[in-house]
């Protein structure tokens, strides 16, 4: 393969992420989609029982292209153990750096969907849609 776009690591995140799924009990969660490309992400986190300002676990669910799903998996991995404030302060640059590939303007929306969803979850301050409530919209 001549470029990094579909490198093994991203493909692993895409189709075998340990962070895909739902938590027993989420504290914060949200759903977002890119209506134009049909990518959908549900992202949720559980806070640390001892230290409620900190994210203990993160999960995502949804469907879409490799970039959108791999980004969600990487983000989940990255935010576990971080203070919420720090997670809220993550930027597009962080996300793109973790993806490790240049994103054309057309693919930026895919790469940043998970981060936007996490920010929304934090801003809303609610667990969002419970597991099994149908596909995220």
């Amino acid at each position, binding site marked *: 393969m001549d470029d990094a*776009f*579909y490198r093994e690591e991203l*493909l692993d995140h895409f*189709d075998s992420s340990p962070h*895909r799924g739902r938590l027993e009990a989420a504290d914060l969660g949200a759903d977002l989609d890119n209506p134009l490309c*049909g990518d959908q992400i549900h992202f949720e986190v559980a806070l640390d029982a001892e230290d409620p300002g900190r994210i203990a676990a993160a999960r995502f669910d949804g469907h*879409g292209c490799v970039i959108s799903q791999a980004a969600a998996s990487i983000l989940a991995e990255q935010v576990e153990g971080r203070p919420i404030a720090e997670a809220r302060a993550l930027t597009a640059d962080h996300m793109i750096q973790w993806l490790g590939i240049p994103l054309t303007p057309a693919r930026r929306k895919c790469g940043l969907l998970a981060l936007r969803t996490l920010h929304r979850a934090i801003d809303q301050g609610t667990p969002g849609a419970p597991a099994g409530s149908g596909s995220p919209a």
Partner: protein
Amino acid sequence: MGRRFSGIIPRPAHPRTMATAVPTTPALDDLRADFPALDQEVRPGVRLTYLDNAATTLKPWPVIRAVQAFDAEYPANVHRGIHTLSERATEAYESAREKVARFIGAAEVEEVVWTRGTTEAINLIAQSWGRTFLKEGDEIVLSDLEHHANLIPWQMLAKERGVVLRFAEISDDGRLEPEAVERVLSDRTRVVAVTAMSNVLGTVVPLEPIVAMAHDRGAIVVVDGAQGVPHRAIDVGRLPVDFLAFSGHKMCGPTGIGVLYGRRELLEAMPPAWGGGSMVLRVSREGAEWNELPYKFEPGTPPIAQAIGLGAAVDYLSRLDSEAVASHERSLMEYAHRRLAEVGGVRILGPEPEYKGGILGMDVEGVHPHDLAQLLDRHGVAVRAGQHCAMPLHHRLGLPATARASAYLYNTTDDFDRLAEAIADARRLLHDRRPRRPA
């Protein structure tokens, strides 16, 4: 009744007979050399396979040269100057209008209004005709196939005027049966606005019975010809549609130019949608008297080079045998349907080739359309992925997005071989890898 174009352009006495008096018919296989963009590598060693024609077509040399000649030799404004260059520009610009009128079989050249494209043309109908003649409770019939360009302008009107939108449903294979239109017609139907060809599925819409049943109810028919006109699917001399909208860039012409064809009586009765220079005859502080057709709808300096380019595109297309072009595209689609069935995991959306034009909508199992488009691009194969400005249709299909390969005059079966190979490669990478992902 309308003024002829400053007497510069003689109107053809019999526009329709001229359209058929084609001098020579170049063979289709010689055409590729006319399109310089075809002959390139998108990156070293990777040849371009252009299958995104429904988004925009490539431009042949005569069109490129016509645009360049305007800019290089006579870049003057039209209908204004008395000097030589301006007269030359005006003549070229108005003769492009004549060519377009002939191409679509319009009875009168004044029925051809320049717009920026299909989108602007349909907005013009909705904003001018719609706001003038529709009232609360009136109904507009659309179909599930419509591009947003033939949906949003009507939604805006519906919201403003309390007009009701009704939708003719498509069959599971993406066909629009006349009976489906009949079912949503009523005594309140004032407009039937449908596409001539779906930009997602390629479905060719049976306009003839639809026009007849709409007219029976006293409704006007608006045809979105963005995909149909490039394939010469519509002749308004034979099929009495009331309005027809299309874009130059999807038929070998430049971007930024398109056409609203309207029957004279309708255009005469419509107020201008926009004001400015050129669209008026007499102006005082208090008011103005509108210019004649088609200028009433064309305020400001128009896209002159682009209109001239579209004229050259129409000349180019008119030299081809439209039957040969249609059968070329049909055989390409038959080939593509067969070839892609061999790939495995490819579901072709929409009807069988006999019911459609050169558009192939696809769903590839295990490969998101965006990933597919990106992976195909590595093979130099240009397709489009997404919702193609047709969200309601995607809802109807139950798919978040689709991929689309679309053909035009210059495509060959080789192009579809490369498409098939590239899809197989994408499948190997993304689908056949490891089905480890939890369901």
